[in-house]
Every structure is written in structure tokens, then in C-alpha cells.
């Protein structure tokens, strides 16, 4: 009896195997290969999940993909137009091929004919990317939300979990989940609305903070951790959303007022400097330098808004900070002058090794996600040279970046592809400062990005998983009163 069952199972498996189409009488393709995601000729970390892709070429009903390295190879044959690699075999291959170049050859059956496309390559580098990424999933509904979640994804596989769900938090808006020093055990985000606050996960404790004092124009908005985790630097903004009349430009968000503050999480004090609380100047997007001795931020003079929004340009500035005494410096340096550069800087982020500052530049304004021209730029803090990252940027907005802890990788949100929905892209930066073509976060099914109607928002890398989940947030939202700050 057992033998019969075994034979039957083997028979079924053989049939299934035999049914998988394999290339025969292969011809060279005359058209070019169109794949999604656009994974051709990219540099990848050895710990990334399989780069599954699908063919956009019409009428493909079977594919064969050969991934050939120096020491090993991987072949998949499949019905349909999707190339989906087995997770285990993929990681075995990448582990063996660290530092090597993989050659990928795609053969597709179109109208019964097997066509081979020119090969492309994946370079596997020996420097890993941080294994976790958090992001907010939200409809690109500009100013209104209904269902939104902050999620965390392991980028070595496809495991994803919900960190915060607004359905479990009285429908509150949730935003700006950022890690400190790419650490999973140090992170924060804002829960907006009545009874909300900034949720801080630090030293194994989850706290709810009211980052608003009578001297501040609003609660804390954009923020970042000091490398020692004790401080957080924030902007406080009066944010105004407005719509463009020109159809493709959609939304503009600008600040009527904005200042900077530093929150001391140990003493629940707000540190305010008159230099960054000037009502005649808009200050926003603050971040600490890698050594914690500087605050980088964006600054623009107040102008008449919204009429002159096209002249609203933010410079990149810095001001010293003494973490020992919790004191702001007394001088503002301008590193990137908006007037001279004819652009507007947003979201500066210092690389953990202290070498670079990564930021985005738009023609104007302080909300680059709907600015098609918004691109990332890299400032070498040692030489002062600016790298315009041509290999990384696209003709759609490329913004909201964060660094991997080894400073060799960065992640950002880009609207390339469909121009509507933000997706997460990774790019490699070698030791000489050369950046390489970016690639999108791999999905278990490459069609997932096509089917989803949510944007990936504010991606942030971390080397470990965060210690809380949506239920912890539900509890703290309901039962904990926000700690006051002085």
C-alpha cells in the first residue's frame, strides 16, 4: 500500500516536472527584454532576497532563466511570465558568489517559439545591507488617510509584520518611523490626534511622549536620533497642503512657520535655540551628524506663500551641538546655498561613517514627493564635492532616504515606474564614493507592485527587528498618558 502511494506521488511529481516547459530550438530575440522590476545590471548585497521578476514582453507563456556565477549556477523553468527563484537555492548561490558577477540569461516562449534575450548581470558585493526595513503603507491620497500601517520587512526574505495599524489606534494618523543608528531597539514615530504622542522605543521600553511645549509652534514633526540615543532633534511645522492646477504636479505642501528643537529623552526637556526659532526663517528636516556634534537642517527665508512658492528654496545648513551639556552652537554655517544652486534641499541624512550627507534636491519647496525633478545628491563632507548620483536617480521623485549601518548602502522612496505609487529602492555606494544603479525591494511575487494600490512611504533601514508590534501600540495608545516635556 505504502509503496503504491509513494509511486503515485513520484509519478505526479514526474508529470508536473515533465509539464514544465523547457527551451528547445532557441532563437535569438529581435526585441529587447522588458522586465519588471528593472533588475538589469545592478549591484546587489549578498544577503538580499531573490530578485524575482516578470517579463513585460507581450504573449510570454513560459520562461527559462539561467543565473550563472563563477562557482555555482541556478536554473529555473516556469510557466507564465514570472521568474521566481527558490529562496534557499538563491541564498546558497549568493553566499558562494560574494564578490563575483552573475550572468543572467532569459529565454522566453512567445507564440510557441523560444527566444533568448541578451544576458545581463548582477554584481554580488561582499558588503551586506541592513536586514530590516520599516515603511508606512498609505494610499497616495495626498492629505487624507483611512487605513494605514507601519510595517517592517526582512529584506533577506519576504517576512513582513505590522508594527502599527491605525485601525487598532482609533484611526489615528501615524508617521515618520525612524531608527536611531540603524538599531532595531531604538526607534520612534508619531501617533497624531487626541491622546496621541510620539512613541519612543528605547532601552527596551516603549514610551509615549508629548513633544510639544508652550514655546513650540506645533508638536514635533520631522526628526532624527542623536547617535547616543539620548536626544532627538525635531522640526516643528505649521503645514499647509495645496493643490496645483497643472494636472501632473498634483500636491504641494509648504510650511507657514517652522523651527527646530532638541528633545532630551532622559530629562524630558526641550532644548531651543534662538538661531533655529527665528520666525523670519523656515527651518526643517533636522538630522544629527554621525559624531553627534552637528545638527544639519534645511533653512529658507520666509516669503509670501503660496503665491511665491516657486521661490521657496531651502539651503542646507548646520549648527553645532554639545551633547555633554545639551547646548546648541551659536553660529549657523551654510553648506549648500539654495540661491546660488537654484534648488531646494530636503531630508539631509548623514552616513554612519561620517563621510557623506545624502539629501534630495527639488526645484523649490519642502515637499519633494510630488516633484518629478526631485533627485538625491551626495555631499562628501571631507572634500565638499557633490555627487549628483546620476546612476541612482530617475525622472520621477527620488526622496526619503536612509543609510545602512555600514554606509555602503542606502534606501530611498522613488515614484519611478508608475509615477504615482512610491516604491522602495536600494543603491550601492562603493568605497570610492561611486554610486550604482538602484533596484527595487524584491517581492515574493514580482506582480505585487503592479497590483498594490498603496505607496511605500519613509523607508528606514535597521540591522535588527524592532521589539514592538501593533498590539503594543494599541495598548500604549489606549492606556498610557503621554509624558509631558518642559
Amino acid at each position, binding site marked *: 500500500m505504502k509503496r503504491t502511494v509513494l509511486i503515485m506521488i513520484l509519478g505526479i511529481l514526474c508529470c508536473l516536472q515533465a509539464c514544465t516547459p523547457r527551451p528547445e530550438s532557441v532563437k535569438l530575440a529581435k526585441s529587447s527584454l522588458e522586465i519588471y522590476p528593472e533588475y538589469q545590471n545592478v549591484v546587489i548585497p549578498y544577503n538580499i532576497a531573490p530578485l524575482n521578476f516578470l517579463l513585460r514582453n507581450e504573449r510570454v507563456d513560459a520562461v527559462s532563466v539561467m543565473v550563472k556565477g563563477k562557482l555555482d549556477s541556478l536554473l529555473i523553468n516556469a510557466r507564465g511570465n514570472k521568474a521566481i527563484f527558490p529562496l534557499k537555492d538563491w541564498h546558497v548561490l549568493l553566499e558562494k558568489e560574494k564578490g563575483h558577477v552573475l550572468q543572467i540569461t532569459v529565454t522566453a516562449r512567445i507564440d510557441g517559439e523560444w527566444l533568448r534575450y541578451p544576458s545581463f548581470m548582477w554584481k554580488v558585493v561582499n558588503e551586506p545591507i541592513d536586514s530590516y526595513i520599516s515603511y508606512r503603507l498609505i494610499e497616495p491620497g*495626498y492629505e*487624507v488617510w483611512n487605513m494605514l500601517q507601519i510595517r517592517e520587512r526582512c529584506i533577506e526574505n519576504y517576512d513582513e509584520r505590522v508594527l502599527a495599524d491605525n485601525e487598532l489606534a482609533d484611526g489615528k494618523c501615524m508617521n515618520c518611523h525612524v531608527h536611531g543608528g540603524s538599531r532595531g531597539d531604538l526607534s520612534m514615530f508619531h501617533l497624531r490626534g487626541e491622546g496621541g504622542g510620539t512613541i519612543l522605543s528605547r532601552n527596551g521600553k516603549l514610551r509615549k511622549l508629548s513633544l510639544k511645549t508652550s514655546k513650540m509652534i506645533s508638536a514635533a514633526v520631522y526628526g532624527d536620533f542623536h547617535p547616543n540615543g539620548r536626544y532627538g532633534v525635531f522640526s516643528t511645522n505649521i503645514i499647509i497642503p495645496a*493643490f496645483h*492646477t*497643472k*494636472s501632473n504636479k498634483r500636491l504641494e505642501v509648504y510650511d507657514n512657520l517652522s523651527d527646530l528643537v532638541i528633545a532630551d529623552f532622559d530629562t524630558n526637556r526641550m532644548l531651543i535655540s534662538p538661531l533655529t526659532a527665528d520666525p523670519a526663517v523656515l527651518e526643517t528636516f533636522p538630522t544629527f551628524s554621525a559624531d553627534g556634534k552637528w545638527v544639519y537642517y534645511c533653512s529658507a527665508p520666509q516669503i509670501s506663500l503660496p503665491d511665491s512658492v516657486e521661490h521657496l528654496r531651502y539651503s542646507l545648513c548646520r549648527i553645532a551641538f554639545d551633547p555633554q551639556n545639551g547646548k546648541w552652537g551659536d553660529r549657523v554655517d551654510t553648506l549648500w546655498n539654495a540661491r546660488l544652486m537654484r534648488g531646494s534641499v530636503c531630508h539631509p541624512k548623514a552616513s554612519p561613517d561620517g563621510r557623506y550627507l545624502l539629501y534630495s534636491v527639488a526645484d523649490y519647496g519642502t515637499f519633494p514627493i510630488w516633484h518629478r525633478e526631485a533627485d538625491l545628491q551626495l555631499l562628501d563632507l571631507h572634500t565638499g564635492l557633490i555627487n549628483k548620483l546620476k546612476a541612482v536617480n530617475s525622472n520621477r521623485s527620488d526622496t526619503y532616504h536612509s543609510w545602512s549601518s555600514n554606509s555602503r548602502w542606502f534606501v530611498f522612496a522613488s515614484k519611478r*515606474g*508608475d*509615477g504615482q505609487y512610491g516604491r522602495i529602492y536600494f543603491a550601492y555606494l562603493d568605497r570610492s564614493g561611486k554610486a550604482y544603479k538602484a533596484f527595487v525591494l524584491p517581492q515574493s511575487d514580482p506582480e505585487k507592485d*503592479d497590483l498594490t494600490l498603496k505607496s511605500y512611504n519613509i523607508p528606514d533601514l535597521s540591522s535588527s527587528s524592532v521589539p514592538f508590534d501593533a498590539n503594543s501600540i494599541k495598548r500604549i495608545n489606549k492606556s498610557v498618558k503621554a509624558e509631558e516635556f518642559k
Partner: protein
Amino acid sequence: MTIFFFFFKILPYHLFHREQSQLFLFSSNFVLEYLKHPGALANLSGDFFTQFFYYQGVGPAIMAIVLLLWGVVVFYLLFPYMRCWAWLIAILAVLWETGRECGLNYPLSGTITLIGIGGAIWLCHYCIKRSWKLGLPLSFFILALSYWAFGYGNWTTGLYNFPNLKREYLLALDSEMYFGRWQNVRKLLAKDKLHAPLVTYYYNLLNAEQNQLSDKLMNFYQPASQGLFLTVAPTSTYVTIFAANEVWFALGDMTMAEHATILGMIFSPHHTGVRAIKRLAEINLINGDEAAAMKYLRLLRKTLCYRGWVEHRIPGRQSLRVIQWLEQKRELLSKSDILRTANNIPLSLRHLLHSNSANSMARDYLLCFDLLNKDIAAFAMDYQQFSNSQIPCRLYSEALLIYLAGKGASIDEASRWNIPSNVLDEFKEYTRLYESNNGVLLQAKYKKTYWFYFHYASMKK
């Protein structure tokens, strides 16, 4: 047959609306998502069959079959205990479930779940009856499998529902306008003059599409400017929120149309829907944003009912009719750029007119917006700036006379505005009656004039 005719004759738009607010895709990824949750088979089959509600008569037929099956299951379950009385309970069960299916957010999978659970119980009963020893463990297995396949029913919309004929009327208007069957809309509007902003909204939009907005504005209930542009507020239903895009789309303001469509989609029960996806594809095609349009076209290409629609719209493969339609719509787009808040409607309309002074719909909407808000000064300014006709229509003449009377203008000045003499005479008569406090006669003679609206319509906050 009764159920079929009930849905076919009484609630056809209800079924159509349910189809419009869901998106069923033929994709392994999409189907696998169903299998991850309890009630997989019920939800999958429910949504699969719901997509056919798109076709006239198919929805009622599916409803009839599914509800009949539910009745049969109930009958077979109860027959061993109640014998012929099982019929009565089965009919009551079908009536109850038919009522539940009248809920707009109650899915077809709700009834399929009940059939599945009923079937599983019947199977367990059968197994146990044949052999206790084998039947008991088998029953546990069947129930576990049944939980995965059918779940525990949909109770989110309450225990019972009733047909909502007022809502059906609103959905009928909404659907007929969507299909551009204007004769049917006229018939519906003539049949039932329901006082609701959505009804007025479609009444005004229909008239505007036929270049009759100003002529017919005062013939209908007008809840100030809410009958021109629907208010999107936390209290609004998603039907209203979604419908808000139609006027912006017709006027040529694609930013606002897209915004309203996405809001409608966000607040709809499934946060998606073929109608919203189609509209977003259209908006982006008009904007010339092919990448964004393809996002939505790719989704629709994976449906059964909209593949054909997509094939004529894929950039590079568009039919002549689609190309001509796109060209017409693109003429209305704003050529220059300014910023405005979502509620600054006059600024949006004025900007459309600055871009294209021939956009007569934008002109009428702007002037009527001013009038319905009783903003005579804004009306006079907008009329002078944007009106291109020598002789004002009746409505605008009436409003201009109020403006001139407010200014204390002379008869000579009134004649410079080319106001027809008969309107001028009637205004004198109206003023006489108004001053003599003859309300009954005033209402009888001038109820449908702007003068009457101006004096007697109360503005709700």
C-alpha cells in the same frame, strides 16, 4: 423567479454598484491572498461572481441561484426534524438572507458562507449517522476545513437589512450618469424629486453637460453650492465622496478629479473598485502621464469584464474614438499653474477659464456657484470677466438686476447690460409684490426665479 425579479426590477443598481466598488483580478498573487484567510473559498467565489453583476440581468440571476441554494440547504438540514414544515423555515431563511443581501456592504460571500456551513453540517450529520467512530473525527476535519473554506459568516453589517429604495434611487442616478444615458437620468429626475445634494448634483451636472445649467438651475431644489460641488466631510458617505470627482472630471480639473477619486477609493468598503480604477486611468491618460495610466490599465487588464475597454486605451494602441475624446478633454486642462486649497472652488474655476475661455461648463459652474451662495458681487465681477454672450440668459439677467438694484443703478445702466425688457418688467412687478408683502402671489408667480431664491432660500451652515 421572485428573487430574480426582485433584484432585476427593484434593486438592479444596488448590484451594479457592488460590482463597481470591487476589483477582482485574474492573478495568482491576488487569488493567493484569499487563501490566506478563513472563508477563503466563500470570499473568492463571492467576489468572482460579483464581477458579473456588471452585466444586466446576470446579477439578479446569480442572486436567485445563490439564495435558492441557501433555501435548499436549510430545507435539507431541517427536513429530518420538521418534515414538511421545513419548507416554511427555508422560505423564511431565504427572505432573511435576501434582506441581508440588500445591504450595500453585505458581500455575496456572506450567503455562500451560510450555504457552505449548512453543507458542512449536513455532511457531518451524514457521516456521524453512518458511523460514530469514523464520523466523529471526520466531522471535526470537515468543520475545520469548512472554517477555512467558508469562515463563520459576515456579521459586520448587522443581523438583517431591508431594501433601501431611496439609496437605490441615488445609485440609479449615479449609474445612469456614469453610463451617459441622459434620457434615463431625465426620467429618474422627473419621477422622484428627492431633496438630497447628490440628486441636485447630478441634476446640475446633467444640465451642464447639455449646456442648460443656467436655464434650469432654479427649476430644482438647490441646497446652495452643495448641489454643484459635493461636500467631502467626515460625515459624507463614500458614494457621495466618490461621486464628487464627476464634476471636476467634466470641468477638466484633473488634479481635483484625481484627488476626489482617490478619496472615494480610500473610503469605499474594499478601498478599491473598478470604477475608481477606470477613472484614474482616464485622468492619467488625459494628463498624458502614460506611466501612471498604465498602472491602472494593467490592473483592469487582469479583469474579465474590462479587458476590452483597456485594449482601446493602451498608449500607442488607442482607437480613433479614444484619441478624439482625449484631445477634447485635454483642451480643458489648465495651461498654467497656481496653488489653491481644496475648498477654494471659485479660484479653481476661474483658473480653468483663464486657461480656456471657451470652457462654458466652467463658466456656468462659476456663475451659478456665486449665485447659489448669494455672492452677487462675485457674480457681477465673474460675469463681466468671463461671460462671452451679448445678452445674458434669464438667470443671469435676474441676478444682474439684483446687482444693479443693490448699486442703485438707473434704467439706462440696466439697458447697457442688455437685460431683456421683459425681465426688467417682471423685476418691477416682483419688487412691487415683495414690497407689498404679498408672499402667496410672489411664490405663485416667481418661485422659480433667482429673485425668490435670493430673498427666501436660507443658507444652512
